[in-house]
């Protein structure tokens, strides 16, 4: 038999068909899903110890069944919430033993608002018939308030935004030494403005009985 001089060419005409087949398979079996969200940590169940908190350190938010917001006994729209929370957290009204204020707070030192961001607690109550969309909106506003303050402090101390620092810290490609520095910084900032959001247990229990 005579050998052909040239190598036979692979037939590429059906390549498009194969690729289309794969494409359609992926279109059918997959969905565009979101993997983003708000991370929260629930309190331990047996944590029933009651702590005595000064009333000025508590910021009360209630959500009723008509999705209306009651903040510190006043009806408020959600877009004002962030500023109110910032004013509350950043107030720094406490006078320390040596006569100085909380040195990183830039608030108005209003005697009605919190002593110190470390002691400030936000209490969020929601009615059973409130909508989840509204609840997420509030959680988002609270997170936005904390992030604004944390970014400000991170800028002041390290010249970098807090969320960027956190992203770098959780990114798998950052190396160990960088992570160590970031870990310490992230924890410092978090301790300056710890996120204390309580979703009052008591209310939940009394409402469960109505079921």
């Amino acid at each position, binding site marked *: 038999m005579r050998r052909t001089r040239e190598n036979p060419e692979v037939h*590429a005409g059906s390549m498009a068909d*194969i690729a289309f087949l794969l494409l359609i398979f*992926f*279109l059918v079996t*997959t969905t565009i899903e979101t*993997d983003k969200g708000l991370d929260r940590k*629930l309190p331990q169940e047996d944590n029933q110890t009651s702590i005595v908190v000064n009333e000025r350190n508590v910021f009360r938010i209630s959500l009723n069944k008509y999705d209306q917001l009651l903040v510190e006994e006043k009806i408020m729209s959600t877009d004002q919430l962030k500023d109110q929370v910032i004013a509350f957290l950043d107030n720094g009204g406490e006078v320390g033993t040596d006569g100085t204020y909380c040195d990183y707070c830039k608030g108005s030192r209003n005697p009605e608002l919190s002593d110190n961001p470390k002691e400030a607690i936000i209490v969020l109550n929601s*009615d059973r018939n409130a909508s*989840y969309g509204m609840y997420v909106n509030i959680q988002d506003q609270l997170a936005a308030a904390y992030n604004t303050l944390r970014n400000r402090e991170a800028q002041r101390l390290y010249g970098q935004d807090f969320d960027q620092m956190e992203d770098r810290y959780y990114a798998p490609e950052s190396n160990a030494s960088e992570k160590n520095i970031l870990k310490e910084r992230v924890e410092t900032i978090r301790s300056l403005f710890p996120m204390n959001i309580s979703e009052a247990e008591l209310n*939940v229990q009394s409402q469960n009985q109505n079921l």
Partner: protein
Amino acid sequence: MAKFTKKKDGDLPAVSTASLPDIVFMLLFFFMTVTTMKDSSLMVENTLPNATEVKKLEKKDRVIYIYVGKPTQEYQKVFGSEPKIQLNDKFANVDEVGTFILAERAKKPQELQNVLTTALKVDKNANMGLITDIKQELRKVNALKVNYTTYEGDAFNNLQ
């Protein structure tokens, strides 16, 4: 050897399809990267709310999903139109959430069992009472890390 007949003059030249595979492959890779595999078909309406301060969920094998929402049209006749919980492929009551979490946790490898997150994929029109009950159940089984899964977007759109 076959002899090729010469093309007649005046015929339109055929559009070259040589680059078609490349184009389709490009599309294919696009879809492969932006989508994720479906692991359970949704039986509830699931329009997630929007939020801006979102964090990306960590690795998929460390997440347990709970879906909440109104049953879709085809299930409404049987299950009514009140928001329900969907665990894997079936509807469930609130008191089944705890056992579901424990069962899912037992399926995961030992080293991951302590770092699991529960992703709550809840329709934005669901009511808070159900969510509060789910959270109580999660606390009972000590599944404390939760993630309210959302789309990224302006949270004020949630109210419409």
